[in-house]
């Protein structure tokens, strides 16, 4: 393990992360040495950068990083909740972020980390540790997310980690969930910015005792005109002492500046840029001879590897419905979720998939962000993600968020993007170039060969996933 000081970089330095792979290799070799000796087998930390605010830097005793949850001094109930969820030890982001977020006096935090690394658990743990459970109906923490699905998902995580907190009440402030004239009587509130703003204005939501504000998928929230404004207005109505925590998988430069204003004097935690391509996910593309054969090829994919749940992203509702029909006939249990469904209907559909009653989710873009169904082992881009007017240019961010739905928490994940002509190939190529992804080509000619190739790719990308110190 490198010493603490070497892992901490000044804020200026962190602006230009080191793209050289050399660091990684050195670190990995270090770790491997220990294995060779058969002694310590600790994992190596080389990919998390921490920059501290002035308050934290001035301290004679710099931040610790917690290797176990017990070291964090969490309330017993919260610790039990983490143990019940099979959390064995803090993830890399958690071990850096939690001591900073839990420190007193509370400090703001901007944390960026790839999908499935435990961001949600980190801010939920912090939130629960700050709540005074003797006032179960007094709102004390507010968690904002860009969509109702995500808000409800976070609500579920709060309830799970807080399952041993006897008087915990969690409310969802999403469209249609809170009747007019009723007050929110919960200690933790998860919601979408618009609804929360309305509730505060109508005095249904008493924010006077709020201690924590969390914004998940912060890049998306602060970036988009509407959501950003709503977040800012919500924040203005909160007590000035509130601790602000911003979390996201990506923080484009423009958003970072805004985020720093939004959460002044925050500690920052970042991953190096190239880590963002979601290591551990085997990324492939299927070279289809023409568009009409995509469906038959899609069905074959389920025989190539052992799939838990899977998500298929498509462009239109019509193709979502059509694929669903054909897959059901093939014995799959399928949920199709797209813009035609609203509110409660959407909740029911996503629950159906989340609970495992269906194992294939076919969806348009609504779900790309943040939704965590941990058993998803394959993501299929039935169409290359596009953006802009007329959807004429490829959308790398969406690609990244989509494939981030699989391979959660170091599990095996596979993503396969379908192309069928020069245009779709070129678009995918642009995305791959942007993230320097080495996409593996699959062909649907000989399934024995394709199967072998897929198995090989899964193995090798896990080996290089960077979660392990490699001996090379």
């Amino acid at each position: 393990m490198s010493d603490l000081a070497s892992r901490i970089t000044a804020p200026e330095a962190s602006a230009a992360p080191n793209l050289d792979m050399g660091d990684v290799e050195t670190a990995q070799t270090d770790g491997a040495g220990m294995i060779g000796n058969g002694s310590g087998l600790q994992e190596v930390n080389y990919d998390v950068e921490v920059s501290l605010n002035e308050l934290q830097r001035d301290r004679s005793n710099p931040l610790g990083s917690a290797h176990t949850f017990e070291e964090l001094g969490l309330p017993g109930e919260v610790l039990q909740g983490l143990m019940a969820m099979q959390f064995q030890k803090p993830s890399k982001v958690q071990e850096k972020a939690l001591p900073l977020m839990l420190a007193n006096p509370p400090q703001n935090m901007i944390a960026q980390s790839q999908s499935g690394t435990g961001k949600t658990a980190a801010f939920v743990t912090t939130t629960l540790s700050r709540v005074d459970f003797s006032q179960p109906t007094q709102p004390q923490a507010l968690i904002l997310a860009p969509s109702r699905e995500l808000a409800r998902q976070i609500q579920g995580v709060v309830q799970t980690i807080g399952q041993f907190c006897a008087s915990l009440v969690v409310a969802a402030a999403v469209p249609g969930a809170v009747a007019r004239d009723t007050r929110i009587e919960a200690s933790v509130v998860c919601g979408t910015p618009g609804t929360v703003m309305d509730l505060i204005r109508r005095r249904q939501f008493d924010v006077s005792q709020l201690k924590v504000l969390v914004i998940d998928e912060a890049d998306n929230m602060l970036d988009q005109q509407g959501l950003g404004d709503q977040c800012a207005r919500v924040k203005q109505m909160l007590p000035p002492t509130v601790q602000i925590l911003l979390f996201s998988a990506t923080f484009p430069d423009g958003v970072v500046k805004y985020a720093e204003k939004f959460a002044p004097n925050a500690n920052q935690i970042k991953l190096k840029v190239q880590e963002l391509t979601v290591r551990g996910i085997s990324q492939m593309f299927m070279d289809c001879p023409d568009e009409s054969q995509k469906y038959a090829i899609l069905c074959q994919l389920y025989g190539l590897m052992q799939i838990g749940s899977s998500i298929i992203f498509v462009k239109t509702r019509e193709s979502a419905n059509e694929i669903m029909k054909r897959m059901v006939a093939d014995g799959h249990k399928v949920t199709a979720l797209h813009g035609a469904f609203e509110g409660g209907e959407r909740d029911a559909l996503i629950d159906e998939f989340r609970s495992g009653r269906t194992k294939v989710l076919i969806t348009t873009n609504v779900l790309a962000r943040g939704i965590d169904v941990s058993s998803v082992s394959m993501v299929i881009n039935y169409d290359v993600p596009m953006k802009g007017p007329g959807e004429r240019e490829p959308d790398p961010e969406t690609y990244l968020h989509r494939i981030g739905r699989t391979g959660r928490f170091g599990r095996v994940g596979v993503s396969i993007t379908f192309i069928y002509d020069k245009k779709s190939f070129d678009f995918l190529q642009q995305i791959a170039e942007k993230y320097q992804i080495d996409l593996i080509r699959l062909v649907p000619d000989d399934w024995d060969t394709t199967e072998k190739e897929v198995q090989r790719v899964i193995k090798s990308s896990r080996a290089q996933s960077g979660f392990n110190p490699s001996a090379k």
Partner: protein
Amino acid sequence: MAGSSPVRHRQTPSRPSPVRSPDSSYRSEDRNGEMNHLEALLAAQILHDDVRKRAYKTLADHEYEEEQKKRAEREQEIKDQQRREEERLRHEKKLRDEEERLRALQAQTVPKLPPQPKPSPQSTTVAPSNGDAAAATQPAAAKPTPTPDTSSSGPAAQDPSKNPFQAEPPKTNGHVSSAAPPNTTSSPFARPATSQPANPSAAATAPEPAAQAPAQIQPTRPPAVPVVDDYVQIHKNLKKLRALMTEHAKSNPQLKKQMGEMRREIRKSLGQLTGGKGANKKQLESIKTILMSALHSQPSSPMTDPSSFVVGNREPVEGALNNEPQLPSLFLYLMNQLGKAIINQFINECGASPRSADPVGVVTAQLFSAKEFLWRGQSLIDILMAKFRIVCPVVFGYRGSDKTNQGRLRLGWKKEGDAWISEQQHNDRMMGLGIGYASIALRDFSKSSNINPWPPSRYWKSMADIVNTPPDEMTDTQCIVLKSMLNQHEEKFINFYGSAAVAALRRALVEFPNSAPKKTPGVMGLQVLAVMCKRDMGLDLGL
């Protein structure tokens, strides 16, 4: 007093009336004389006394009789009581014996190395789990093999309610040690002879060939060793079979095409399984159809002797469907692929989503118990278990340090390339495999006409193997496997084993973690599960 009546009176006593001549006395001159009177008086006196005496005697007789009767009654009563007492005693003694046998069974099952489905004594162990499988029936199956000496001090000293499992000597992982450098015996976990007399060899014979290590370490239990090797050997044989099939396929395009399609169809069907009644009919049928077709040589494949893929020898059984000495190799190959798919489904899906294990367990039990897929009347589940033995040795009683290379090999810690997979990935696999194991081993066959291929006694044994690890040799891997094989299966376990199960749960979730020298996340996970048992099921294990 004078009068006519005393006269007659006077006469009668002297002589009994029938004897005395009525004429003589009646006509006698002095029949009213004093003499006669006195004589009669005396006779009456005598008679009176006689009667009185007899009355007394009768009374005495009666009293005696009464007394006799009473005594007899009392005697009877006492006898009854005695009988009752004796009965009670006998009953208690029987209970005690049963208990002793239970302990003996536990002691006996524990030290045995990986399951040995075939030997005849085992078949009795199978029985209880097929039926109602109450705890009481379990001990009855205990007799066949004598209690190994390791436990001789155990049963007497230990209260069964406190420790339902017996202590057991450490084991080494046969599979691993054969792959690892030969210093197995001197490795840290072979050394600590904390409680067991069984591993004295460590220092003495360090440079022995690795293959001998297990035998050295468990000199008291010779039958255990072959079983270890059996599963590892089966696993090797299966690999050979796979390579062989690839060769066959090269020269037989029809076989190649269908083999791949069948393999992928099995994989797909298994991946489609979900919870809910009747949800998996289509998938089960599809897999059965494929296996049947392979069994009926469509497409045809060379014949192979299945005995290299099962533990023990099998003789033809009357009435069994597949009695031939050889079966189509494609069928065995696909059973192997099925096993692989099951394990992979546990690994890839069930760590993240434990509830998806149950449908896989149901289908596994159905397929491996189906009469049409038995060979010589017994399941081919050894094919699946050989894989389990490799990927999750912990359920077969192996342990090792997670801080050393060899220890990790023993624990089934996977390597990718030259590097260990991360702790998180490893834990994730173990969680999936733990619950997967439970979903196979805790199936209720009481309403099925088939024989449970992997009955709950296996589950009990696996649990015992883990819980009996000396606290200082316990690793989080074992804690995680233990927790995930218990979590969500507490009720089923209790249904099979009753109060013995509760005692076992107490041991696993309270006493065992309490004795751990360090409160690691794995240990705490067990403790939290005890809290959850109380909260969710009202099962107070006495925290």
